[in-house]
Structure formats: C-alpha cells, structure tokens
C-alpha cells in the first residue's frame, strides 16, 4: 500500500491531495499531478483576480454579446442559478458587483454594477448578461474543483483505498464514513481547533463570513453589505460544489429545511465564543 500527500497554493488557498492505493508511489504521484493540473485548469477558467481567465472575459463582454463558455463554466453557472432560484435570490453570483471595492475583489470597470441573477442568460454554450453585471464564482468554484478532481481520479485504473482532496477547508473524501475532521477557526489573533467531528457525507465545506481569507465573505443581497458572521457554518453534502455553495446560504440564515433536504445536505453551526457546540440542523 502506497500513499502520497501533496499540497500546492491554488485557488487562493492551499489545495491538499491525499491518496492511498495499492499501487507504486510514482503512479500515485502521477495521479496527484493530474489532479493539480485539472485544478490549475479550473483556476485559469474561474479566477476573478486573473484578468485573462474565462470568467474575466465573461465579465468584460457578456453584457455586450453572447460569450462562449467552457463546459466547466456552464456547469458551475447552471448550478449557481438553480440555487439562486431555490433560495429566492439569496444565493447570487452577481453579488460581485457589491464587493468590487478593491478590498475583496478588484474593480476593473470603475463602474457600479447591479446585483441581479435573473439577468444572467445561460445558453447551451454561451452566457449573456441582460444588465451590466459582474459575477464571482468564489463561493462555489473551489468545491467544483474538488469534485472535478474526484471525477478525474475515478477514471484512472487505480483502486483507491482513500482519496482526500481539501481546497482550503472545502474537502471531499472517498472513504468518508467514520472519518473525523477538525474545524479550524480563528479567534482574535490565533487559530483554534475544535475536537473532531465525524463526516456525515462525502463532502464538507465550512465558512465564516468576514474572517479567514479576505475574499471569504457572504453578502446580504438586499442591502449589498458584507455580513460578518459570529459563527462558523459547515455543510455536509454529496458534492463538494453544493457543500461550498450552501455554506453561503446557511451563513446568511436563509436556508430552509426543504432546501437543505433537497440537496441531501446537513448543516452544523459552531459558535466562536464559549464552548463549541455542534448542532445538526
């Protein structure tokens, strides 16, 4: 049994890949390289910060014309729009317009942009904005990248014993039952870790708006303001993309039981002061 454990700075955070399988070490390292290549590809498509990314092209041109998009981009935007519909617009990727103040996201246009997911038209292979929008996939693309890594590994002729891909806390496991995970939180100036929690589904994503990475924010769509959250929210889901996206909705406290059930998800909330209590909603 061989194992390989690697970490690279990608997607604005650290992407960690742990693989265990009954093959030789070079085969596992090669598999991990392919995972990182795939995640680098997704970063090249979906980075808001990279002016040459596909996303930046969409933001630049989609108000003027139909912009052709990759299958990956289409999948992510389609999932985001579905979640917008199900949350009555509380989840909205066009929220970028409210946070392009240079602190969270760079403002390239020097214009004010509306927040309106309903103005996004997604065709078979193109996207078009009916208003002068800016979209940001920061709240979904990391999870999507993790899922893509799993799709890629599933196609390899390797019988994995364990796969863990962790994109800065958005993580998914192959053998997840009874596996334990620690939640990293930041209190004042230091990190704190809680005793472990047990995985309840394939993927787990956590979020605490306004803390951690500077880009880790949840925006109240009605006011356009950043919400700072007093607690960390976690979502277990079958896919890392939905776990990632749902943390934003759960963090804004607008997730209904019905919505969580629809995505076969479970949520946990971890307060940042006092004793850690895990509540399974």
């Amino acid at each position: 049994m061989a194992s390989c454990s690697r970490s690279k700075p990608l997607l604005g955070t650290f992407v960690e890949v742990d693989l265990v399988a009954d093959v030789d070490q070079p085969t596992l390292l090669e598999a991990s390289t392919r995972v990182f290549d795939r995640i680098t590809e997704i970063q090249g498509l979906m980075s808001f910060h990279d002016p040459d990314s596909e996303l930046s092209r969409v933001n630049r041109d989609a108000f003027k014309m139909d912009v052709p998009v990759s299958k990956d981009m289409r999948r992510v935007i389609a999932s985001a729009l579905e979640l917008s519909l199900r949350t009555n617009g509380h989840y909205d990727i066009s929220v970028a317009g409210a946070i392009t103040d240079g602190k969270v996201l760079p403002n390239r246009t020097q214009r004010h942009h509306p927040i309106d997911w309903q103005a996004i038209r997604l065709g078979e292979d193109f996207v078009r904005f009916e208003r002068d929008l800016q979209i940001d996939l920061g709240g979904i693309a990391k999870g999507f990248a993790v899922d893509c890594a799993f799709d890629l590994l599933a196609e390899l002729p390797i019988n994995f014993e364990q796969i863990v891909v962790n994109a800065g806390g958005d993580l998914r496991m192959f053998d997840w039952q009874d596996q334990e995970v620690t939640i990293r939180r930041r209190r004042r100036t230091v990190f704190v870790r809680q005793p472990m929690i047990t995985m309840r589904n394939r993927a787990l994503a956590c979020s605490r708006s306004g803390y951690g990475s500077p880009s880790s924010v949840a925006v109240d769509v009605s006011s356009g303001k950043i919400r700072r959250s007093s607690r960390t929210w976690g979502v277990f889901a079958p896919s890392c993309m939905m776990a990632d996206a749902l943390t934003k909705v759960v963090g804004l406290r607008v997730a209904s039981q019905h919505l969580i059930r629809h995505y076969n998800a479970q949520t946990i909330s971890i307060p940042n002061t006092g004793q850690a209590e895990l509540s399974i909603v």
Partner: protein
Amino acid sequence: MNSRSKPTQAKQSRRLLLKGGVAGLLATIGIVPRIVWSKHYLDVDEARNLIWGEGDFSPVPVELSKEQMKSIRKTSKTRVRSKKINAFRNENGDWFILDQVIGKHENIDIAVGIDVAGKVRGIEVLEYRESYGYEIMNPKWRAQFHGRDASEVLKLDKQIRNISGATLSCRHITDGINRLTVTWEQVLQYI
C-alpha cells in the same frame, strides 16, 4: 525515499510541541502558550523530481548583499528575511530553490522551480506548520490531555488528518514566490 512505502499516517508528522498538562498549567496562570501542528508532504528529493524530473542539480551558494536585499524588497514589496538562498542549479541553468514562508500563524517550507528564462515551473509545499493558542484555554479541550503522556498526545494528534473551517489564504506563498522571481531577475540569472 525511505518514507515512500509507509502508510499516510506515518508519513505525516504531526507534533504537539507542548504537552497538554503543561499547556493547561500555563493557561490557568494566564500565559497562552502556542501549540504547533505540522504536516509533512514531500521530501526535498521528491519535490525536485516532481518539478524537474530526474537530473543533476548542484548547490549554488548565494548570499545576497544588503543592497540586493533592499532592491528585492522594494521591487517585490515583500520582506526579505534571509540573505542566504538555498539554491540548486542544473546544467541547463534551471533553478530549484528551497524557501520558507512565514505568516502570522503559519510557517511553510516550499520548493520552487524557476527555469532558465525566469518562469516559475513548479511550487510544492514540503511542510506546513500552524500554531494554535486559545483552544488550550478551553477546559474541555485541555481535559483531553489529563493523564496522558506525550505518546498518547501524539496519537490523538495523528487522528487529526483533515481540517476544514474558514478558508486559509495563500497570500504569503504568493508573496514568497514573487520575492523569488524578483531574486532570479536581479541576482540568480547573472550567476
């Protein structure tokens, strides 16, 4: 690589540098000690092979002058902590550099490949260390360690294989890479 055939848990070194009991005592008298958690990913040879494949790299002793350090800091807008650069070069003129990136809570060993044209060809995290503080103020957390010796503490820590939570930024790494590319531009390419 001696660690190649070992299982994941053995390969990942996680250490609690302070025993829980000592930590608890210090916490009760108001001093907040730090606990360091570390994870080992790759050995230097593994990282070099991943970035450059098999090939001969020889150490090149590089020591930056004060002027060079100042200039690199100015251009990269990043603090230059060390004048010594742990650098290796092959016959083509490609570089393999071992570096350390220090943030507020983290201390990360990285390996970076810069090719003969100054382009970054690969970045690997070798070891990641993170320090924790406040959790040991929490009596429930401390209680985990009562009556345990160091090996049990280590065992407990080994169970912590995965960490979720608010997203960590890799900005310090980005700054570190920027510092190294500027170092190549201003110094290494002329050696």
